[in-house]
């Protein structure tokens, strides 16, 4: 009979130690997160969740994240496809540039955006046309887009890379234009990867704080997204509202993680 690794009479000290670390940390993470959710009494939590300020924050977060995620998907598809399919000079460098916002602290990205849309020549031209980005809800969208585009690009690129280019070759011999082959073959085949990227991008944009804080500011009931609401209420000592915002963010994170795992098929983002 082949040796069965589970059939040892007693786990070895090695295995016991490693598993103890594993289970210890899992318990720690679950306790910390669940602890936050169950900390306030339930009626107080419900009251906070339905307060005008939190309702505003939910609505603003949903609207801005929906728009910025849509823009991310629309922009990321051609970028990801080009990086996956075409060879051109500087491809590796360009790939790295698209990853910069991943490594950059969002606060720094926010400051850079603030300078670009504010005192720079472009910023002054833009505000001359009446399009104000700084300290407005529009700034939230701009910040979320800039920080989260790389996630969408990465997931979409890996989705396109797994599709054999011969599918498109065959489609073109069957009468498709390049557009037609892309739309009828590559895009449907990349669908689950793009959905996975969309979900992770949406979840990250809902939670985006640093860049939004810098570019859109933290004005109550104006640029107050859920993370900003959490920050504002925490700094004024209004713990119940802060926890309410956190609970919503936890629910969104867990749900989108589940959807991502379902669609990504193990493709990583990080």
């Amino acid at each position, binding site marked *: 009979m082949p040796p069965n690794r589970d059939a040892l009479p007693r786990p070895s000290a090695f295995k016991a130690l490693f598993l103890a670390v594993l289970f210890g940390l899992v318990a720690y993470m679950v306790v910390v997160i669940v602890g936050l959710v169950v900390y306030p009494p339930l009626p107080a939590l419900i009251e906070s969740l339905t307060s005008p300020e939190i309702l505003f924050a939910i609505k603003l977060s949903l609207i801005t994240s929906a728009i910025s995620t849509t823009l991310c998907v629309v922009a990321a598809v051609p970028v990801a496809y080009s990086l996956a399919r075409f060879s051109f000079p500087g491809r590796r460098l360009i790939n790295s540039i698209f990853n910069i916002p991943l490594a950059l602290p969002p606060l720094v990205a926010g400051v850079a955006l603030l300078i670009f849309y504010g005192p720079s020549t472009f910023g002054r031209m833009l505000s001359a046309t009446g399009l104000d980005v700084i300290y407005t809800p529009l700034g939230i969208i701009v910040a979320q887009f800039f920080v989260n585009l790389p996630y969408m690009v990465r997931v979409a690129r890996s989705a396109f890379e797994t599709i054999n280019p011969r599918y498109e070759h065959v489609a*073109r011999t069957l*009468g498709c234009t390049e557009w037609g082959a892309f739309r*009828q073959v590559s895009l449907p*085949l990349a669908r689950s990867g793009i959905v996975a990227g969309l979900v992770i991008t949406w979840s990250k944009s809902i939670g985006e704080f640093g860049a939004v804080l810098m570019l859109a500011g933290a004005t109550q009931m104006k640029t107050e997204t859920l993370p900003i609401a959490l920050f504002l209420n925490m700094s004024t000592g209004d713990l119940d509202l802060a926890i309410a915002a956190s609970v919503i963010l936890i629910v969104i994170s867990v749900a989108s993680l589940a959807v991502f795992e379902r669609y990504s098929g193990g493709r990583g983002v990080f």
Partner: protein
Amino acid sequence: MLDIRGLSLSLGEFSLDGVDLTVADGEYFIILGPTGAGKTILLETIAGIYAPDSGTISLDGREITRTDPKDRGIGMVYQDYMLFPHLTVGENIGFGLRQQKIEPDRIKERVSETANLLGIGHLLDRTPLTLSGGEQQRAAIARALVLRPRVLLLDEPLSALDAVTRDRLRRELKAVHRAMGTTIVHITHHFEDIFALADRVAVMQDGMIVQAGTPDEVFRQPATEFVAAFTGMENIFPGISRVRGSEAAIDLGAITLRTVTAVEGDVYAGIRPEEVIVSREAFESSAVNAFSGTVVEVQQNGIFSRVVVDAGVPFVAVLTRQSIARLGLAEGEPAHVTFKASAVHVFSR
């Protein structure tokens, strides 16, 4: 007629180097060559996936070198099928017709017509990944054929299949070619495909066509050592096969070979030179094919030498130099050739 002149393309590790090729209407043309010879990119360039660096491609007198693939009327089938996994088999076969905005009823009709021709009419509602390899390849061929292409390009269509399926699909390809009269360019590295299917054959090496001609010409008079080494079977004889029970007799005219095959009628019999035993005297053995003749050629060539014994037909054998010296083989000397029934490979022609 498909006419290719001076086609060159450099594409990373693969390249085409001045390919000249002419394929007549209705011809079954096979391109033989080892892995990495550039066969697939030749087909992809003919299909229009890649634009050549130089050279021209003409179809029926019209130059199509820069024509969009969709407007060439050239179909392509890959070794690994490339059926669209998000569509059913029927939708795959109808894919090209849908691009032409043909009405759905007419599409349905033509899809089932072509599917039935290839014996997959009952699989139209299945998804490709639930099909066997042979069924998937039939579906891929049907998908290309349903558009009635002027040229059908087949990139190693039989290589991914098991031996039994391969034999069956090879016969079906032949039948389809006869029935539809489509011009076919087929890439392979199996010489069995050539004897079963090809009207003409070209041998490709390092991005160049090193020889083109009828299968007989290429196998009998290999233009280069590479072709000889690659084709491998130097003893190829046309004959007539008669099957009796489990055995078959191949009448080559002067002599008759015995072997085990189910192939009847006009055939080629092939024996690898390594399997031919040369002796001075006849000897008792289990090998059923034994013929006496005369040594007509001894070609010293490194450790191994080629010895040709004329025993009604010329048998080429490969011997070590020591064996030739020990047996005292020389031109004009009498000799016997012996080989087993299983050494005789039979291909219908």
